[in-house]
């Protein structure tokens, strides 16, 4: 066990080391983030002005679909799996993940899944064009001929996620250092444990949904076809039974990251640790019983509408508790504003705004106007981009010195923060206005009264996109030539086992488990 990494490409292909696999996940997710971001740039460039300038409507639909799929399944989820791989064993004092060979497999099938998915863009018939929610019958009877590649790709991606989650659960439950009781675990580990259970519960449901599609398309069943006794609305129920927990799958690990960074830079322990754990668990539970708030307009009896409205509003309670806890952590702390902290504070601000619009969307009557409008687009980008991208960026800046033993450039980090914070808000805040004024989402072209806000939104998107290039530049520069650091504790206020090992973290850590008091 005591040897270092193998040499050459074989190190990466056959590695079972959690740090190597974490690195692979992170780079892969960043590549996907750039790909999905490129799609977003195409979308915003086309929407810069009314009229079709650059692409055709059918390609526009492929862009919106691929943007959603690549960002959700390719960028965000693997990014957090990567963080989990790197950090969870180090945080709980384990030598590696519980199932290292499966760990290798769960990463290496991902590139195949996404190659399948992306290759459809170059095939006759084009890529998936039915939205990342792929509602039947647009995705079945009326789907492009390449839909089977999409289905197969989703199966592979789903299998990868399930394996990743099993590994995380096994690691957390079986591999903790002596004395590391559940209620002593760092928040990131807790949120990931709950997330992993969510994934195991709902990724198979997504697999079920695409399998039913596959059978409807190729084997003459009628799950979603009213002619044969099926129902297209069933698809939406199955999809959102997966889709709503999926939202929390994305955001819960982000909560975990933020719960590390804010205490560190406030130099004060996390406020309300146990209530954080309970809040996370109740959010996870509630996520299973609110799915149909995505479907207020499919024609539900009023009793159903009221139930899903009330249940959805309830989620505000544990979520608010979390925000209050973070603010109480900052309160009377000794706060400094390094780049990770800036991103973490921006996360709290933006996520809270997204939470408010989420509460508005829960109101079934008002959803008549909000539904499928740009208001929804604004809402979920406030939640997802703030939740995943801001917290992911914060996490990279925060742990990068530990990973590679070099410090990033603080000024460049801060510049990147301000560019992305401002760019993000210029992009997405006006989309609230567009939606309220009546612009539906997924529109390739729009009426003239929407021109001005769209143009502003596009400008913001280019700014936000450019800030990501600065990010990758800063990261690569740090790895190659950043100022070396060797203190185990990079940050004065940091707590946790990962800050007790040497910097940079050696290839193998905690071969003998530490004693946790």
């Amino acid at each position, binding site marked *: 066990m005591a040897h270092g990494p193998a040499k050459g490409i074989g190190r990466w292909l056959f590695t079972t080391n959690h740090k190597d696999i974490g690195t692979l996940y992170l780079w892969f997710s960043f590549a996907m983030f750039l790909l999905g971001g490129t799609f977003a740039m195409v979308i915003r460039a086309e929407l810069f002005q*009314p*009229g*079709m300038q650059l692409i055709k*409507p*059918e390609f526009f639909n492929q862009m919106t679909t691929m943007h959603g799929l690549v960002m959700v399944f390719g960028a965000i989820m693997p990014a957090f799996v990567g963080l989990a791989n790197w950090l969870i064993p180090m945080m709980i004092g384990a030598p590696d993940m519980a199932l290292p060979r499966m760990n290798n497999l769960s990463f290496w099938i991902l590139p195949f899944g996404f190659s399948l998915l992306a290759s459809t863009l170059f095939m*006759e018939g084009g890529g998936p064009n039915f939205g990342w929610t792929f509602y039947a*019958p*647009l995705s079945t*009877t*009326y789907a*492009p001929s390449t839909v089977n590649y999409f289905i197969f790709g989703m199966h592979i991606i789903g299998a990868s996620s399930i394996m990743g989650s099993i590994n995380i659960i096994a690691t957390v439950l079986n591999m903790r250092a002596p004395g590391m009781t559940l209620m002593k675990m760092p928040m990131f580990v807790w949120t990931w444990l709950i997330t992993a259970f969510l994934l195991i519960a709902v990724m198979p449901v997504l697999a079920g949904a695409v399998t039913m599609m596959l059978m409807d398309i190729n084997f003459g069943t009628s799950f979603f076809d009213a002619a044969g006794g099926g*129902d*297209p609305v069933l698809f939406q129920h199955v999809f959102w039974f997966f889709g709503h927990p999926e939202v929390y799958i994305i955001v819960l690990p982000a909560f975990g990251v933020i719960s590390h960074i804010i205490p560190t830079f406030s130099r*004060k*322990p996390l*406020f*309300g640790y146990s209530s954080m754990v309970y809040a996370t668990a109740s959010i996870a539970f509630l996520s299973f019983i609110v799915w149909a708030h995505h479907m207020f*307009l*499919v*024609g539900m009896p*009023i009793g159903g509408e009221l139930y899903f*409205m009330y249940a959805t509003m*309830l989620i*505000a*309670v544990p979520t608010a*508790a979390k925000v*209050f806890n973070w*603010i109480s952590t*900052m*309160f*009377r*702390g*000794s706060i*400094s*504003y390094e780049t990770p902290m800036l991103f973490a504070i921006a996360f709290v*601000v933006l996520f*809270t705004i997204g939470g408010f619009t989420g*509460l*508005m969307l829960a*109101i079934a009557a*008002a959803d*008549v*106007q909000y*539904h*499928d409008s740009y208001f929804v687009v604004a809402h979920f980008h406030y939640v997802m981009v703030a939740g995943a991208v801001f917290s992911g960026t914060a996490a990279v800046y925060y742990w990068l010195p530990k990973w590679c033993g070099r410090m990033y450039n603080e000024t460049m980090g801060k510049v990147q923060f*301000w560019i992305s914070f*401002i760019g993000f*808000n210029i992009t997405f*805040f006006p989309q609230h*206005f567009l939606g*309220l*004024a*009546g612009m*539906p989402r997924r*529109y*390739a072209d729009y009426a*003239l*009264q929407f021109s*001005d806000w769209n143009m502003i939104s596009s400008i913001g998107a280019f700014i936000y996109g450019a800030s990501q290039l600065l990010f990758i530049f800063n990261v690569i520069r740090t790895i190659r030539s950043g100022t070396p650091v060797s203190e185990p504790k990079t940050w004065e*206020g940091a707590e946790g086992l990962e800050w007790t090992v040497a910097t940079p973290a050696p290839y193998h850590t905690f071969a003998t488990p530490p004693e946790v008091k």
Partner: protein
Amino acid sequence: MSRRASMLFALVFAPAISLAFMSKAVAEEAQRWAVNMPKGATPVSNAIYDIHMIIFWICVVIGVGVFAVMFYSMFAHRKSKGAVAANFHENTTAEIVWTVIPALLLIVMAVPATTALLDVYDTTEAEMDIKITGYQWKWQYEYLGEDVAFVSELTTPEEEIYNTAPKSQYYLQEVSQALVLPAKTKVRFLITGKDVIHSWWVVDLGVKKDAIPGVVNEAWAYIEEPGIYRGECAELCGKGHAFMPIVVNVLEKEEYNAWLAKKKEEVAAERDLAKKTFTLDELMAQGEAAYNRSCAACHAGNGEGIPGVFPALKGSAMATTTGDYAAHLDIVVNGKAGTAMQAFGGQLSEVDIAAIITYERNAWGNSTGDLVQPLDVLKFKQGQ
């Protein structure tokens, strides 16, 4: 230190400054810079607006409170100012309080939210019924019990969409025939879809409902003021999703009755027209217009379709074999099962179908010289 302070200042005041900028702009060009939901023209849209504003202001108040505390500690408890961290990390009372208060607030919100929803759902005692059917990519309106039905399609020309002509005022918001409704009448909409899921949304009427194949949904509107209200499809339905707008023309009741009577006459006249014999030039002219309205969305204005998705008509065997137009007629009238090719027999007049087929057989280098008369279409439809 002052640099940090100014950064904080910017973080706090950036939203406020942009708000101030917004309100000024709103005053200048309310329509173009609209930032809020319109109140709309029906009791339901007003109820929705009210609940939207109630929730919005509650959120604003909570948000201001929460962020005030946060920005205060960001400012007052800075390390650079010499702040020393306290060490508290739990306070059961506080935690209970901030669980209970949001819960109570939610109950307060739930009451008006429920009332508004009951309003949206109250379709009883409607005075008239309109059936709305969503197609790829147009709407069909049926005046139930009146024997009047028509298809409403986008009329914005392709040149405007592809920027070779200047865009008109109602770019992408003009249709071949608006849905005409009487004012001060409770109208019930029965909404369904023919192929994929669409969603009928007119923001000023406070109506949005999914149009799902095999399901019929209900919605309603009581429109106070005559006028023209515009809307669009709100559920992704394929490449023409952004190109199937809705126009509702609301008339005073008497005017509406006159319109309906005239419309019925037109329907009868159109039936007679089917028996007339047309010249090639007449059919080609009408065919080009009808083709661009109903066919070009898939088969493209130049008849080349989209490879792998929508077949080309230019040079296709079906449209280029002189004299043999039975299959061509069949596919236009009856559609093709399992594909996006609709049965146009039910949505276009005999004259339009005859003109389209004639056009397709004689345009873009297709040169059969075939002339299909409306009467041929009528006979075919009747199974003769």
